[in-house]
C-alpha cells in the first residue's frame, strides 16, 4: 500500500477529485474566497478611479500595468472591472461560494446522512464551478477586455459584438462561463434537494429538520427553478450575437449603417434576466436566514420561537420571489399597470419578513443570551434585514 504510486493516487482522490462532502465544501470555500478576493481588489481599483477621476495611482499602475496608462484607468477597463466585480461577487462568491460551502458541509451532518446522495455529481458540481471561474478570469486577458455591459449584461450592449471593446470575445467568454456555472449550480442543487428528501436519519421528519437545512432546501429549489431561465436568456443572446437573429435587437444603427435586425426588444431580456435576478436575492439571503435562526436560538439558550412559522415564512418568501421581478424594470417603459402589480407583490414580501423578525426577537426575549461574535453577527443580520426590507 505504501508505494509512491499509491500515495499519489490517495492524494489525488482525497484532495482533488474528492467525492467527500466535507472536502468538496472546503474546495468551494477556497475557490469562492479566492474569487471574492479578486472581486474585492477590482472594486478597490475602480472606486479609486471613481473617487479621483483622471488622477494617477501607483496601485492602479501596479495591478493593471498597460491597461492603465500612467496609473489612470481607461474607460473601457473601468466598465470591465465594474462588470466583473458584480458578476464575481453575485454569482461566484455569494451563490456558489456560499451554498457550495455551507450546504455541502452542513446538510449531511445535520440530517444524519453519511454523505450526499451522489458524490460523483457533487464532485462534478465543484469542477464545473472551478472551470467557469477560470473561464471568467481568463476573459480579463482577451482582446478588448472582459465583458463590460454590467453584471446584468443588458442588450444591445451585450448583443452586438462590435458595440464596445468588451462586447466582443470578453462577452462571449462571460456567456460560456455562466453556462458552465449554471450547470454546476444545477448539479449541486439537485444533490442538496434529493439528499434532504431521501437521506434523513430515522425519525427526522420534515418538521423536525433544523431551520438551516430548510433554508438550504428552499435555496436549492430557487436555484433549480430560476437559473434555467437565465440559461434561456443567455442562449437567445448567443444567437443574437453569433447567428443574426433578432430576439433582443431592433432598428439598430452602428456608424450610420443600419443592421439587419428587426422586431426584437431588449425588454424581453430584462424580463428573463430578472426572473432569475430576484430569486437570486433570496438564493443569497436564505442560507444566512437559516444559519442565524439556529445561532440565535442556540445562543439565547432557547428553542426557536415559532418553528413552523419560520418554515412557512421562508416558503412564502421563496414563492413570492418568483412574482416580483418587474420591480427591477420600472424605468424600462414597461406597462405602468404591470409596474403597480409588481409593486404590490413586492410589498407582500414584507409580511413573511416581518414574521421572521418577530420570531427572531421573541427567541431572544428573556433568553440567557451568550454574546459571541456569532450572536452579534446574527443580531446584526436581523436588524439589517428589517431596516432594508
Amino acid at each position, binding site marked *: 500500500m505504501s508505494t509512491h504510486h499509491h500515495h499519489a493516487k490517495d492524494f489525488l482522490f482525497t484532495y482533488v477529485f474528492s467525492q467527500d462532502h466535507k472536502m468538496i465544501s472546503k474546495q468551494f470555500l477556497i475557490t469562492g474566497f479566492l474569487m471574492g478576493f479578486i472581486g474585492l481588489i477590482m472594486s478597490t481599483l475602480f472606486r479609486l478611479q471613481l473617487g479621483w477621476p483622471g488622477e494617477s495611482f501607483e496601485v492602479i499602475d501596479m495591478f493593471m500595468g498597460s491597461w492603465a496608462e500612467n496609473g489612470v484607468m481607461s474607460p473601457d477597463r473601468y466598465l470591465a472591472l465594474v462588470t466583473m466585480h458584480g458578476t464575481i461577487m453575485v454569482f461566484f462568491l455569494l451563490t456558489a461560494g456560499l451554498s457550495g460551502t455551507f450546504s455541502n458541509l452542513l446538510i449531511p451532518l445535520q*440530517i*444524519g*446522512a*453519511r454523505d450526499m*446522495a*451522489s458524490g460523483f455529481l457533487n464532485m462534478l458540481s465543484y469542477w464545473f464551478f472551478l472551470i467557469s471561474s477560470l473561464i471568467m478570469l481568463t476573459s480579463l486577458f482577451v482582446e478588448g477586455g472582459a465583458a463590460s455591459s454590467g453584471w446584468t449584461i443588458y442588450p444591445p450592449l451585450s448583443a452586438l459584438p462590435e458595440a464596445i471593446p468588451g462586447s466582443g470575445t470578453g462577452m462571449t467568454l462571460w456567456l460560456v462561463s455562466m453556462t458552465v456555472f449554471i450547470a454546476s449550480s*444545477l448539479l449541486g*442543487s*439537485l*444533490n442538496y*434537494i*434529493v*439528499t434532504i*428528501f*431521501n*437521506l*434523513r*436519519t*430515522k*425519525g*427526522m*421528519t420534515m418538521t423536525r429538520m433544523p431551520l438551516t437545512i430548510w433554508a438550504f432546501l428552499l435555496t436549492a*429549489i430557487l436555484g*433549480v*427553478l*430560476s*437559473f*434555467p*431561465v437565465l*440559461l*434561456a*436568456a443567455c*442562449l*437567445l443572446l448567443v*444567437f443574437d450575437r453569433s*447567428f*443574426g*437573429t*433578432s*430576439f433582443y435587437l*431592433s*432598428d439598430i444603427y452602428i456608424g450610420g449603417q*443600419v443592421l*439587419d*435586425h*428587426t*422586431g*426584437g*426588444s431588449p425588454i*424581453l431580456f430584462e*424580463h*428573463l434576466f430578472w*426572473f432569475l435576478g430576484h430569486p437570486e436575492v433570496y438564493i443569497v439571503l436564505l442560507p444566512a436566514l437559516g444559519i442565524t435562526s439556529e445561532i440565535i436560538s442556540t445562543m439565547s439558550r432557547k428553542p426557536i420561537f415559532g418553528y413552523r412559522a419560520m418554515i412557512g415564512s421562508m416558503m412564502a418568501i421563496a414563492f413570492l420571489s418568483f412574482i416580483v421581478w418587474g420591480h427591477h424594470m420600472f424605468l424600462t417603459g414597461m406597462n405602468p399597470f404591470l409596474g403597480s402589480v409588481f409593486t404590490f407583490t413586492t410589498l407582500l414580501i414584507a409580511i413573511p419578513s416581518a414574521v421572521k423578525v418577530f420570531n427572531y426577537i421573541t427567541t431572544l426575549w428573556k433568553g440567557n443570551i451568550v454574546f459571541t461574535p456569532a450572536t452579534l453577527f446574527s443580531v446584526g443580520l436581523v436588524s439589517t434585514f428589517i431596516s432594508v426590507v
Partner: protein
Amino acid sequence: MSHTEELDNKELWGGGTSPFNAGYGKLMMWFFLMSDALSFTGFLAAYGFYRHNFSAIWPSAENVFTHFPFVHGHQPLIYVALMTFILIMSSVTMVLAVEAGQRMDKKKVILWMFWTIIGGLIFVGSQAWEWYHFIHGTDIGAFELGKGIYTLPDGTIEQTQGIIGRWKEGSNQTILELPWRSEVGNIASEYLTLSGQALTDAMANGQAIHGANLTHNEYGHPLFADFFFFITGFHGTHVFSGVVLNFIIFVNVIMGTYEKRGHYEMVEKVGLYWHFVDLVWVFVFTFFYLI
C-alpha cells in the same frame, strides 16, 4: 441479492421517508425536468410576447407548413399532426416498457423500448424534413420591403422594416400583397397591395426572399423563423438526446444489466425524460402550429 452501492447506502441510512416512494435518482430526474421546463417556459413566453406584439403581421402556420412527403398539393399541418401522433405513440410504448419492467419481463421491455426508439427517430427525421422545406421555401418566394418609412397606396405610413409582401396568386409577380388588411368598420377585408409604379418604387431598395433563415423569412416576420428554428431546435436536441439515452438503456436491457440488478428503475428514469420531451412538444405544437 446484489444491489448497487447506492441502494446499500439507502438501506443503511433508511431513516426518514422516501417521498413519493422514489429513489433519489428518480427524484433528481423530476427536479431536473422541472428545471428544464422553466427553460422552455422562458422560450415559449418570449415567443408569445412577440406573437402578440406582431399579431397583425405574424405568419399563420397553415400557410407555412403545407407539405406532405410524396403527396402533391396543399396539405396544411397534416404532416406535423402525424409527427405529433407518432411522438405521443412513442410515449405509449414507453409506458408499456416501464410496465413490463415492473413485471421483470425482459422480452417485453426490449420490444417496447425498440418501438419507442423507432418513434423517436421518425420524429427527429420528420423534424429535419420540416426544417428542410421551411428553409427551402416556395418556388415563387416573397419580397422584403426596404427599410425605412414607406407610404402605402391609401396614404397610411408604415414602418417597413422586415415587412414581407407575398406575390398575389396568379398575378405573375405584378401585384404584391402586404401583410395588412384595409379595415372597413370592424370587418377586415382584402390585403393591401402594391402594383405598378408603387411596386417599382418599393422594389428599389428591397430584396427578393426565398425560404427562411435566421435573418429573413419569406412567410412573414423574421422573428417567426428565429423562434421556429430556435425552439424546435432546442426541443429536437432534447428528443435526440432522449433517443441516445433510450438506446443506451436498451442495450443495457439486452445485456441483462437490470435483470441482474433486480429492478428496471433506469427504464423508469429515461421514461420520465421521454414523457417530458413529449409533453413539451405538445406545448410547442400548440404555440407554433395551432394559435
